[in-house]
């Protein structure tokens, strides 16, 4: 029915340097949106060395490889049963894990992956996409299809900032609407002697949002497999993550208990 058809928001996390927090933040964004009751799918398109399955301790039965095979077979079957569920204390969302085998990752076609996304975006309010740090064919296609691209940076040392600048300029050459690309700074007060204002002046652009460095919480969250926004510790970083999500959904975030009843999930898995 037409009324059931949604065309979900796709939010992609991208950067030009590795280890800037794409995976950690995309996981937390998916979790926070799910906590607020949205139907959410989190896609690990760091195909070769994706960490979502690691950070969330998943042992998936199916991966993006199976989804691509299914789309190519054109069976018309729903892809949703092939997603992996992450659930913690009543909050749950679906995950598209990266391939188990490296050679599978190497051989997946970007077009088919985009077809999978196009198919799934009709089933979810939000699709959160984690990527690698390069302008690959797949990443360029993901940038195109995304509603919002979060371009993540850190104030590290000068080569990283140079690459951030080059990345940001390259993004601009793609001529997206100005509010599609959102510059977010992560780990803002980490050990470095470079000033934030210098970075802003190098980039010629202000950051849309700033997340603080909280090494201990981040590491613990990865070690336990529980996202920061779900683990009950309301650290500064957690607050900032919730605030980021609130800005993306255009509303203030709720600090109430997660909604458990009548979620879309209960309908599928009952």
């Amino acid at each position: 029915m037409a009324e059931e058809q949604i065309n979900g928001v796709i939010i992609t996390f991208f950067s030009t340097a590795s280890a800037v927090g794409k995976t950690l933040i995309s996981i937390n964004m998916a979790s926070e949106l799910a906590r607020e009751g949205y139907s959410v799918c989190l896609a690990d398109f760091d195909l070769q060395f994706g960490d979502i399955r690691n950070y969330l301790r998943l042992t998936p039965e199916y991966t993006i490889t199976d989804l691509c095979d299914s789309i190519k077979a054109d069976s018309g079957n729903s892809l949703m049963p092939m997603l992996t569920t992450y659930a913690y204390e009543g909050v749950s969302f679906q995950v598209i894990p990266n391939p188990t085998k490296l050679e599978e990752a190497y051989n997946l076609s970007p077009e088919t992956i985009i077809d999978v996304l196009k198919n799934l975006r009709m089933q979810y309010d939000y699709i959160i996409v984690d990527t690698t740090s390069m302008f690959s064919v797949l990443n360029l296609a993901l940038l195109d299809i995304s509603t919002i691209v979060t371009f993540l940076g850190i104030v590290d040392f000068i080569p990283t900032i140079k690459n951030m600048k080059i990345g940001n300029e390259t993004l601009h050459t793609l001529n997206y609407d100005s509010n599609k690309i959102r510059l977010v700074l992560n780990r803002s007060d980490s050990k470095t002697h470079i000033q934030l204002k210098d970075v802003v002046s190098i980039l010629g652009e202000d950051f849309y949002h700033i997340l603080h460095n909280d090494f201990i919480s981040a590491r613990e969250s990865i070690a336990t497999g529980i996202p920061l926004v779900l683990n009950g510790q309301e650290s500064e970083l957690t607050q900032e993550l919730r605030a980021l999500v609130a800005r993306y959904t255009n509303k203030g975030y709720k600090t109430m208990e997660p909604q458990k009843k009548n979620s879309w999930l209960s309908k599928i898995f009952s």
Partner: protein
Amino acid sequence: MINNNVMLVEGNRLYLEQLSNIIRETETVTLVARFRDAKDALGQGMVFTPNIILLDADTPNIMNLLEEFHQAYPHADIICTGEKWSAESSSLYVNAGAKCFLVKPFSSEELLDAIFAFSKPATGGKDAKVMTFFSPKGKSGKTTLIANLAMAISRKTNASVGIIDADLQFGDMAFFFNLKPQSTIVEAARDTDFLSPVSLNSYFVPVAKNVSILCGTKEPSLIDKVSIHSLETIIDMARTMFQYVLIDVPAGFNPTSIAAAEMADTTYIVTMLNGGYEVQHIQRSLDIFSTWPDYRERVKIILTRVEPCTITAKQEMEEIIGYPVAGIIPNAYLDVATAADDGRMALDLKPNSPLSQRINYLAGKITKKKQDNDDDF
């Protein structure tokens, strides 16, 4: 001053004129004789006492000719010229006594490079050691490692060291050495069909005595401008130009990193320990490399940001990974960052720091003639 008296032997009539003009226009070089027929040059050239012979390698029977020229002119340098460079034929020429190979038509600068630059100690050829630095994910610390290692190797051995920054989208090597290169791997790749090792040399930027760099692309979109074929040609040529070649490649398995690894004598898997899932990433990478029958000799592991950086830590990691660890590098983030921010090398900053010590150790391992498996740390 020694005179550069050139004798040109060129079978092609048009080239003979063109090259003669270039030689005449080149300062400090004199064209003393020119022949279309190599036999004429052998029989008559003597009276002009050339000390440099440009010999057309596209002549039939070039290998015999080379030997005859070598006997007839034992004190002259023979530079082979040809329309295209190839690794096999040029190494044949060099083994038969030629000094180097120059692609026609050459410029004055290339001619001078061939005459002067290559009078340095005989470079590797077959003996050159090519090393590719692979990392599963980015932020591995390999740019720092490569830069410092190259310096350490050249200091230890006086050998010539070349760095190729093939980390095509976001290579930082130029930054580490504070360079604003005129030419990069993009121009070298564009020109490979017209280049020989002598002329490729001018695309490398010297950064220290005996160390030079072929810098990376300036913008990500230029990646498409470096074909795998031209990268392979560049690596082949570099093998004849340097005794050690260190190649930085993009993270993960991609056509560039795979080609560079396949061409290398040793591939290092470089990973920074961040308390995440690095060990799994290394193991999965090893799975792929294990399709090489000799991968145990060819693939080595280097871990960066190892704290504490002790032999026990190294042995523990070997246990966990299930594979020998060739080297460990301590966390020297602030040293490295401070140095890099000023366009300097961390090694020059604190020569006795743990970082320098570990890098020197690795340089020692790499330059040692006979490989041993001693765990001397």
